[in-house]
């Protein structure tokens, strides 16, 4: 499976590079290319000498999977690589033009080049083309680069390794876009950290493989969570709120902070509007839907779900914060209570 993935990757790369190479040789077509992908498609078919009308440029996945087509492109690629050994300025020019060929406009290209001045332009080009080969469009790639410029420092090998790992997790093609949007760091993180998160989800939280895929797709921020905190959050949902794994995935539960979850849940619980279901999943009162607790804004939560006032909730949040602090340092609290004399 992984091997196939890597292969597919390679084919992707080939096409894009040939694309760049072709358009350079036919400069008059460069401007037009962006507005008419079908034209480009025709050109490539000329190169391969076959009619591939059913494969369209807009869906690279499809024609990449055609092995015959990709093998035809190999000589083309070699030609390209040979011509690359040239002085620096013209090399930069080449990078710029290739970037433009990939669909970045001039402003994007300039800011891309200025993001990480230490990175060699060729490496930059390689990494960006790698992203495009993964089936991403220039616009989201640019946004991700802007969000975390250290992506440009990646080597293509690392990048390939990571993308094939993500593919193994079920995060291929379409899902990569939201992943890159939600958590671009997933490409720069250490493999060990990602693996420990996935391990917690799989072994401690007992999510199924499909659930993990959906979960990571829906809330990519989970990748960056501390595994022990992630486990605590899960346990809070499972044991304290009585939510099953399926609903944790569906409600995007893990994307919210523990503080927010606790505040809203405990407030409802103490108001008497939320009960932890028993082992048969029954409660004496109907619990509000999870989306009405977490997904809504605070005003809406107070007005519709909690039916309470904002000032009371503010005080509650402060009290809860203190309670949490003190439950952590239990000993000191007890001392304090001994000293206070109480009267009811």
């Amino acid at each position, binding site marked *: 499976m992984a091997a196939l993935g890597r292969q597919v990757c390679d084919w992707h790369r080939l096409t894009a590079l040939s694309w760049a190479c072709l358009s350079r040789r036919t400069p008059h077509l460069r401007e037009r290319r962006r507005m008419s992908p079908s034209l480009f498609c025709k050109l490539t078919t000329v190169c391969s000498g076959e009619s591939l009308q059913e494969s369209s440029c807009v869906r690279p996945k499809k024609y990449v999977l055609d092995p015959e087509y990709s093998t035809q492109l190999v000589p083309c690629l070699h030609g390209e690589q040979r011509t690359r050994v040239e002085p620096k300025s013209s090399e930069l020019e080449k990078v710029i033009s290739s970037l433009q060929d990939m669909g970045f406009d001039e402003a994007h290209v300039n800011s891309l080049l200025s993001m990480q001045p230490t990175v060699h332009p060729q490496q930059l080009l390689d990494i960006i083309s790698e992203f495009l080969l993964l089936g991403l469009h220039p616009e989201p790639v640019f946004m991700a680069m802007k969000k975390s410029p250290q992506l440009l420092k990646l080597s293509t090998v690392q990048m390939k390794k990571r993308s094939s790992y993500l593919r193994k997790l079920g995060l291929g093609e379409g899902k990569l876009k939201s992943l890159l949007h939600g958590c671009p760091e997933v490409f720069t993180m250490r493999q060990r950290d990602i693996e420990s998160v996935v391990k917690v989800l799989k072994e401690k939280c007992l999510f199924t493989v499909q659930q993990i895929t959906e979960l990571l797709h829906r809330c990519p921020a989970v990748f960056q969570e501390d595994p022990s905190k992630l486990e605590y959050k899960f346990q809070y949902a499972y044991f304290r709120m009585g939510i099953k794994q399926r609903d944790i995935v569906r409600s995007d539960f893990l994307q919210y902070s523990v503080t927010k979850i606790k505040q809203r849940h405990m*407030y409802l619980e*103490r*108001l*008497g*509007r939320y009960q932890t279901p028993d082992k048969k999943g029954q409660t004496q009162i109907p619990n509000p839907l999870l989306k009405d607790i977490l997904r809504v804004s605070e005003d809406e939560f107070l007005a519709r779900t909690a*039916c*309470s006032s904002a*000032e*009371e909730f*503010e*005080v*509650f949040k*402060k*009290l*809860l914060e*203190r*309670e949490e602090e003190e439950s952590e340092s239990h000993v000191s609290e007890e001392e*304090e209570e001994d*000293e*206070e*004399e*109480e*009267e*009811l």
Partner: protein
Amino acid sequence: MAAPVVRGVRKLLKLVDFTPVPRRHRYKKKWATTEPEFPASRLALQNFDMTYSVQFGDLWPSIRVSLLSEQKYSALVNNFDAWDNVSAKLEHLGAKDFVKEAISPQELEPESDLSPPPSLNYSPNLRCFTFPRGDISRFPPARLGSLGLMDYYLMDAASLLPVLALGLQPGDTVLDLCAAPGGKTLALLQTGCCRNLAANDLSTSRTGRLQKVLHSYVPQDIREGNQVRVTSWDGRRWGELEGDTYDRVLVDVPCTTDRHSLHEEENNIFQRSRKKERQMLPMLQVQLLAAGLLATKPGGHVVYSTCSLSHLQNEYVVQGAIELLANQYSVKVQVEDLSHFRKLFMDTFSFFPSCQVGELVIPNLMANFGPMYFCKMHRLP
């Protein structure tokens, strides 16, 4: 070899099976781990959910969340210590004397011709500091002042209201029928009006606590003179012991202590073993209140108070006791209207708007005091 052993075991099992217990009484006992573990505080919460959601309707959720969250304290300044220093210190912390704030504008009123009815006076000299609404700061623990006494007493601010409502006047003889643990008794002494204070509580361990509080807050000469008397008698018999004796009587009865019952497991009144006792509480309360009323001089005043939200322990007890006295002792008792009093303290406490008799402070997160019910009665001459 094995076969006879098995047979023997079977025989034994059969013997066990034919125990003299009839089949209908035999049951398989549950393991301790599978038996539902139901702490008394949870029983209390269930009980409250059932009764109070009916009694308070839409107000109940807000009361519930307040009861389950940390309560707010107030600092009753010890007048026997250097009170002005202490007041300044408390003000520096950002706290305010809620008694002064409530009553000082009222003192201006007689000039504007709106003099309050003469029965509505307040126990004087009480200084009690709280933090403003919504402020959750805490007071540091009380310290020993220069005179060897503690500088302030931390208590629920609502506990002061019954004492304030009692309206002590200089030279009164006062009875505190259920005095322990001593917050209200201390407040009674702080007014400086008690010519004589009798503090009683049935349980000796509780009067022990009361003695301890008095010891650390009240100077020796007041404690050991005949100004304060601590006893451990049955309060229900006070009418026979000292009938028609006191000017002011505070009847702060044992109740379900709603807030306490939700947090404390030890000795919780909602334990299954104390069910009978709990059911008998309203009866006990009526008897205590009747005894308190009988111990009052004709023309004297009584304040009945509880820290429960339940009507059964509040309004119904007051009505029941008044009826009892009218029927059995032909003593006439009149309930005094405290709505004026309520208006004064509206800024500090939230009151339940529709009590038939008396006033009820309901907990609210903005001012998490109470619950505290109090009702003032006048024994007609």
